[in-house]
């Protein structure tokens, strides 16, 4: 077996061990065993980083191939590690590691912590597996495993009805979505007889495959919150533990996007259709996310809706990439995905840290006013949240500006009037977003109402480290965005390769769709 398979096998195999380590009979000091499973999880993640580095090195050695990929054979099915898989792995590893370090203070003091840590690893492993799958049904199975594992992260606060409610919505809506996607897979199987993701399906424009593609977009779209299907997301972001919110916004939500792109690849002949659908959903997501965020009084719900609008930006860029085959667009979309993960993980972890330092419960929904005075009680958290929010709002020279700008540029450069108009519209929408981002920043530096006896705690190091690292990335990707291309370039090459070159294009009149509207 190719050693890079450990990237997937390691977390999945160690997840039960971590669970068992947390059940060790250390009766007098029960909290200690949770710390053991915390440390064990961290060790596993460190090991995964090592495997990741090896895989990146191996992949770089293959760069002569048109679409370099490492293969792990299991039975007749393969796991294929290409640029997009590595991109996903980096995302998952980064967000999981930082969230885990962060959770070392809050979660690890609670009963059930060992399950939480085990499931962080299982979710991560399943997501990396999903990004490496080479078979359509295998992809679906990984996706389903990831959903079940992440469900536990949402329902961690099992005694809080709001969290259970969020978990129920998450479960039901995502199961509907994945069953729809499964029907799409059945259609591919029925009409092509092959489920290979690197297959080229010649009749990509046939009714069955068009239906299949639409079902993929909708089915996986529930997970990545396309707008009318997004309704589970605000509840999960608001009521789940803060670490879970960081994981979701940083990695799990966008996994739907990655699964969607993977599943659509064999149907690449009809890329124009998928591209135009993604463009439409992108615009819808941006508007709806911004409008909904305008009236929120809870920071976490606001960030949830802002996520929806940022996903709109990614959809827009990827839509342009599929619709017009503008190579810079895929890169811009993936870069925005990366930046969004960094910014949102930073925002959520900072909320957790900030509330910890203000002596409040970080896992409940949080009205803005609770943040008053954070600037005094924890300058680091206040600075981090400010920069995260300014970056989300797209202010230069922070990370969020650069990737939004690249999306904008790619849309303008694509030469398609429809894509150009939609990007212009998206750029104008960023203005709207300031109306809800700015009040938060103002509150951070306002003075706190002197609440009687609210203890102020300094941030422990395990909370500081992730904040500082993420903060560094927000600045770094803004000033040296080319660093991110180490990840996004191979990923977008893999994406484009998956959808095939121009020779595979079936002349499908994608513009006919726009003619309906213009």
């Amino acid at each position, binding site marked *: 077996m190719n050693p890079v398979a450990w990237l997937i096998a390691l977390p999945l195999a160690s997840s039960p061990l971590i669970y068992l380590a947390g059940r060790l009979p250390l009766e007098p000091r029960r909290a200690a065993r949770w710390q053991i499973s915390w440390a064990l999880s961290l060790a596993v993640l460190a090991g995964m980083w090592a495997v990741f580095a090896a895989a990146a090195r191996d992949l770089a050695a293959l760069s002569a191939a048109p679409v370099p990929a490492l293969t792990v054979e299991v039975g007749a099915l393969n796991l294929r590690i290409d640029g997009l898989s590595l991109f996903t792995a980096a995302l998952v590893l980064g967000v999981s590691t930082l969230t885990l370090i962060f959770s070392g203070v809050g979660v690890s003091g609670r009963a059930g912590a060992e399950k939480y840590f085990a499931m962080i690893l299982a979710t991560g492993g399943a997501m990396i597996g999903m990004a490496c799958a080479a078979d359509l049904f295998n992809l679906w199975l990984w996706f389903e495993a990831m959903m079940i594992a992440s469900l536990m992260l949402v329902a961690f606060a099992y005694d809080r009805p*709001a969290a259970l409610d969020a*978990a129920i919505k998450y479960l039901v809506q995502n199961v*509907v979505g994945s069953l729809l996607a499964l029907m799409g897979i059945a*259609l591919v*199987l029925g009409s092509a007889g092959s489920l290979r993701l690197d297959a080229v399906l010649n009749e990509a424009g046939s009714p069955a495959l068009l239906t299949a593609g639409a079902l993929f977009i909708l089915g996986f779209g529930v997970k990545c919150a396309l707008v009318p299907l997004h309704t589970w997301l605000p509840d999960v972001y608001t009521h789940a533990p803060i670490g879970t919110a960081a994981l979701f916004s940083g990695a799990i939500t966008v996994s739907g996007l990655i699964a969607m792109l993977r599943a659509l690849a064999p149907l690449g002949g009809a890329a124009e259709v998928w591209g135009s659908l993604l463009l439409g959903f992108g615009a819808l997501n941006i508007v709806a996310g911004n409008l909904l965020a305008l009236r929120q*009084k809870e920071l976490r719900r606001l960030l949830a809706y802002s996520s929806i609008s940022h996903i709109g930006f990614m959809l827009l860029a990827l839509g342009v990439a599929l619709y017009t085959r503008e190579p810079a667009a895929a890169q811009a979309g993936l870069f925005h995905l990366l930046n969004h993960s960094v910014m949102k993980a930073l925002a959520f972890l900072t909320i957790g840290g900030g509330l910890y330092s203000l002596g409040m419960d970080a896992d409940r929904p949080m009205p803005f006013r609770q943040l008053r005075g954070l600037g005094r009680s924890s300058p680091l958290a206040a600075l981090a949240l400010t920069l995260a929010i300014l970056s989300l709002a797209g202010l230069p020279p922070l990370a969020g500006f650069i990737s939004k700008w690249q999306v904008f540029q790619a849309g303008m450069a694509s030469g398609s009037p429809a894509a150009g108009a939609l990007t212009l519209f998206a750029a104008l929408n960023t203005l709207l977003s300031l109306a809800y981002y700015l009040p938060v920043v103002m509150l951070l530096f306002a003075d706190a109402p002197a609440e009687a006896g609210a203890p102020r705690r300094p941030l422990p190091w395990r909370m500081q480290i992730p904040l500082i690292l993420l903060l560094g990335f927000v600045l770094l990707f803004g000033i040296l965005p080319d660093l991110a291309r180490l990840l996004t370039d191979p990923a977008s090459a893999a994406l484009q390769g998956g959808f095939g070159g121009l020779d595979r294009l079936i002349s499908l009149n994608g513009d006919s769709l726009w003619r309906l509207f213009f």
Partner: protein
Amino acid sequence: MIIDMYAAGIAAVFGLLGIGLYGLMTLRNLIKVILSLQIIGKAAVLAVVVAGSISGEIAIAQSMAASVIVADTLVAVIGLALAVQMQRCHGSLDLRTLSMKFHTPPEAENGG
């Protein structure tokens, strides 16, 4: 004869999907919602097998269907566990009362 079977299978997929979606929209009891999910799950299993049977890949389709059945059963188990816990903590399984309680509209919070 076999063509009839495909048609019957496709009709069953459509019918079960429609009934399941209808159930998800109209039912307010959590247990019934999970039940509707099971119905859609059966539609998906049938769809996979019909597709495999049409393209002659029935063995692959069977292997897929086995995994889907496992996943669906797990979903049912977890959904029911959530329902039991909900009944314990909240005392109700009515989706309406659940959401009314946890989704405070912004107006309500600030009184304006």
